[in-house]
């Protein structure tokens, strides 16, 4: 990408950030988070439905302030194109693209891990033959992206991008390096918990999603306004992988399991309904 001059969360453009973003203390951000969560728990006690997705309006994540719709999403019944999804296959993705440790001449630095699991839809059906993409920081908490100016070393043997096509049971497996936490500019002394970005497709394009997978026991969870924008603890837990010794391999890599559930397909039940008419 070309050199960017726009405001962002990296270090090179710190001068153009919303001043509120860089001056708040962690204590102020943490108080805002716990107030929002306390209010949410009261709502649930009063009978409100439990939330399963992040709020798009979550002020502790300062960049969300001007970037969320203020009007409710408009509910609509999906029509033709929305009941289908683009197709991807072995033409699109080479099988070796799921191993992020073999993309250069040498071995990347860091803790080699395997992240494996299944992609399912809301009915529990495997999402087979679909594209799954990941990207991440290296073992020092640095992205290859030009806008990342965090003064941690770039690893010449690690790009941090992987792709795969899910198997017949929705299964996927990536071999990579465990990413490190890194600082960002949301507030003073802000650090993101270690995470891997995941991009997913379903059988209907309405199931399209992008999310982040976290590692168990990260001490930064409570401090992070992006993770905590999900107000419900059970929902937050769904983004945390499980250490799985059956995925760990002898003298090679430790293993994590993470299953992903997309929203429900509408094509199947709507077609069934049509068939009955």
């Amino acid at each position: 990408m070309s050199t960017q001059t726009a405001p962002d969360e990296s270090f090179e453009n710190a001068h153009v950030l919303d001043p509120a973003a860089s001056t708040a203390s962690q204590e102020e951000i943490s108080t805002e988070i716990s107030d929002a969560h306390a209010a949410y728990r009261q709502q649930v006690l009063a009978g409100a439905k439990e939330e399963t997705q992040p709020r798009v309006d979550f002020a502790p994540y300062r960049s969300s302030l001007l970037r969320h719709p203020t009007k409710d999403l408009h509910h609509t019944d999906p029509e033709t194109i929305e009941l289908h999804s683009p197709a991807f296959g072995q033409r699109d993705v080479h099988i070796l693209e799921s191993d992020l440790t073999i993309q250069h001449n040498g071995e990347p630095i860091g803790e080699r891990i395997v992240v494996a699991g299944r992609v399912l839809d809301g009915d529990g059906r495997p999402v087979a033959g679909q594209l799954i993409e990941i990207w991440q920081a290296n073992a020092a908490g640095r992205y290859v992206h030009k806008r990342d100016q965090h003064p941690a070393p770039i690893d010449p043997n690690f790009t941090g991008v992987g792709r795969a096509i899910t198997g017949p049971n929705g299964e996927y497996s990536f071999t990579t390096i465990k990413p490190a936490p890194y600082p960002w500019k949301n507030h003073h002394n802000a650090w993101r918990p270690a995470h891997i970005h995941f991009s997913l497709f379903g059988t209907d394009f309405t199931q399209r999603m992008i999310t982040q997978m976290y590692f168990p026991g990260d001490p930064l969870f409570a401090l992070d306004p992006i993770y905590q924008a999900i107000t419900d603890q059970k929902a937050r837990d769904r983004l945390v992988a499980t250490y799985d010794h059956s995925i760990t391999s002898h003298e090679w890599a430790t293993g994590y399991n993470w299953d992903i559930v997309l929203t429900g397909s509408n094509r199947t039940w709507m077609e069934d309904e049509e068939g009955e008419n």
Partner: protein
Amino acid sequence: MAQAPELKLVPTPGQTIGPFYGYALPFEKGGELVNQAHPAAVRLHGVVYDGNGEVIPDSMLEIWQADEHGNVASADGSLVRDGYTFTGWGRVPVDNVGHYTFTTVNPGPTEEGKAPFIMLTVFARGLLNRLFTRIYLPEDTEALANDPLLTSLPEDRRKTLIATREADGSLRFDIRLQGEDETVFLSYPRES
């Protein structure tokens, strides 16, 4: 329409795309659903704005649409873009002034009399979950007047979903995440 059946599993939460997707997700010719030399090629373009009317320079968009005859594509190969296969899907990062361009075709109606539209998904740093919307073509005013979604919206919001046809045939569609003329964003059955 009947009630959508309950989900068996709870969907995984989304998260923001963040600032550093630029070296990972965009790919060569990602915005070219057809080659610019295709006889039916149309430029679809616009700008993504925030609640202050400032451009958003770190947003990524995807479109998914039928071909010019209203057929839904089922061919793979989007990521390799062989120049011959219409896969119906495209992905572009906006540029550093928030502007995006796809090269595509006007989608045909998927059923006779239906208003054709392009499905659009918006991702951005600062946007905690993806947003869905539709880009309708401006021409078939009768179909637009009968469209179930458009007719369910108040007049002033309906226009945020209808592209403008420019003099050279391009489609112009701006996206406003917040504020005056905020784009209508959609939810569908079975999201939770």
